[in-house]
């Protein structure tokens, strides 16, 4: 699960001045022709840097994203939900593994990336800094946060870096099952008992703004990303992704008799675009910078997990171990 490409650094143009202009031209021509760039191919340093940043943020989002839903595995109501949620959260951890491997092909080790996550140096999707108070919050994530992630990831899967695109293809295939599972859960709540309907509506009310944030700041406020678009690192703008999401899912939410806490939300028949109240972007910045309701808790859980697993990783590397034959 991962939101908009909203955390790019502003590319500094002088970073490109040191590149060999002939190689840079060949590289850009290849991308223009729709070819994929592979790990051992020549690439500008800036391309490598931005991709590591993006894939790493995505991987962190998967592993941190496993926490708010994972906490409901032990409370999921009934066998069907319990087994599905276990499988779903396991998928997310599997996505992290795929993505760390894809980022490693660019030269940064998984250990370095996890260190940077824990130290707060690298970021993850902001939405996971909000708490899941009820089962309905967990269902909201499974359906609508995953839906938002699919919009973003399907776009990125057409990007230029081979290992990332291939990972995204596999991830999107799995996410489409998460979406079905999440939708099924939400339908049951939205059409269930008064208590269930109330629980679901409250979840929508709580999560709508973080979900609007999820796609990143509006294009007019976003950093200059032309180079990233040209290099097919960034495949759709934040507003394009947000519009696509609204177009696909607002009718589905309304269809269930649920309301969305934005009186200005409507589709403009002339432009074909959705109009909405801008979410509070100051709140978005504040949370990204570490001051959200769960930032400290999420990182603390990750830090403790790393510390508790340290002896296992050390033992895996121990040369005196007698048993080194791989399983298969």
């Amino acid at each position, binding site marked *: 699960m991962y939101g908009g490409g909203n955390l790019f650094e502003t590319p500094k143009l002088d970073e490109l001045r040191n590149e060999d202009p002939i190689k840079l031209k060949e590289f850009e021509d290849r991308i223009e022709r729709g070819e994929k760039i592979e790990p051992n191919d020549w690439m500008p340093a800036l391309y490598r840097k931005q991709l590591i940043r993006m894939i790493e943020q995505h991987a962190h989002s998967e592993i941190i994203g496993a926490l708010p839903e994972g906490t409901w595995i032990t*409370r999921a109501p009934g066998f069907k*939900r319990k087994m599905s949620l*276990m499988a779903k959260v396991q998928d997310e951890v599997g996505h992290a593994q795929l993505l760390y491997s894809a980022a490693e092909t660019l030269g940064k080790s998984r250990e370095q990336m996890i260190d940077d996550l824990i130290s707060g140096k690298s970021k993850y999707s902001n939405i996971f800094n909000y708490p899941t108070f009820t089962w309905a919050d967990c269902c909201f994530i499974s359906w609508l946060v995953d839906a938002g992630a699919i919009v973003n990831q399907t776009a990125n899967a057409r990007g230029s870096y081979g290992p990332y695109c291939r990972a995204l293809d596999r991830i999107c295939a799995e996410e489409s099952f998460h979406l079905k599972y999440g939708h099924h859960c939400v339908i049951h709540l939205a059409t269930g008992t008064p*208590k*269930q309907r109330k629980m679901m509506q409250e979840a929508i009310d709580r999560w709508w703004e973080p979900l609007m944030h999820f796609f990143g700041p509006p294009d007019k406020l976003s950093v200059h990303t032309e180079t990233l678009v040209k290099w097919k690192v960034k495949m759709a703008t934040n507003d394009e992704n947000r519009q696509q999401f609204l177009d696909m899912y607002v009718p589905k939410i309304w269809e269930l008799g649920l309301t969305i806490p934005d009186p200005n939300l409507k589709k403009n028949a002339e432009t074909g675009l959705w109009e909405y109240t801008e979410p509070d972007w100051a709140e978005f910045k504040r949370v990204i910078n570490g001051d959200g309701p769960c930032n400290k808790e999420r990182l603390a859980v990750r830090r403790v*997990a790393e510390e*508790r697993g340290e002896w296992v990783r050390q033992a895996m590397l121990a040369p005196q171990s007698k048993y080194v034959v791989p399983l298969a």
Partner: protein
Amino acid sequence: MNNIALKDLLYKIADDQLIIGHRNSEWTGIGPILEEDIAFSSMAQDKIGHSYAFFNVLHELGESDPDTTAFLRNAEQFHNCQFVELPIGEYDFSLVRHFLFDHSEMIRFEMLTNSSFEPISLIARKLKGEVKYHIMHANVWIKKLGTATNESIERLQKSLDEAIPFALGIFEESKYEEELANEKIFPGEIALKERWIEQISDVLKQTELQLPDLSLTEARTGGRYGRHTEYLQPLLDEMSEVIKSDPTAEW
């Protein structure tokens, strides 16, 4: 066929699988390495699936539906061994429990493939194929960590010493051992335990770990008769938190 004996057997298997699966799922998202996080979570899913299969057989024998049976009983109505309800502890304890429990489970399923009660033998045949991989996983890790560093060996040994009395509780005999054996439903806990000791000893011999003297170890029993540690009821309260919040609802 003796239905009371049969149900007693089915309940203990189903409850063991449900509770160990629930416990192991607590590792999801916080495993020592990603690959292991994924593996533990996958095996936990299998266990919950296994319990579901056995609860379905119980349902066919007239018990409530699987969700009601699994999610709405109290601790004293559970027949799982105490071993599976203990908290996950550190990874060393969870790994040792996985190793000790899953070997017993594998042998139990092998024995049940010949059960005269066909629904059990069919399930056992199917599940044996899954547990085979759980055993391979457990053996690889026990051999690896049981020979790697001083810390890993010490941790595993300490957990093994703590786990063994509870592991012996897996084989607590039921009131119906004789009926089950006579009717060729299940050959019995004593036969299972003997094979289990052989199997785990074979693996432990390949490590620096010492199996405690089992003749001097008192088994922690009671689970099969509804007597549990202080850890089971809170686990069940958590498991049923949502489903009990509106018992009339479909989730």
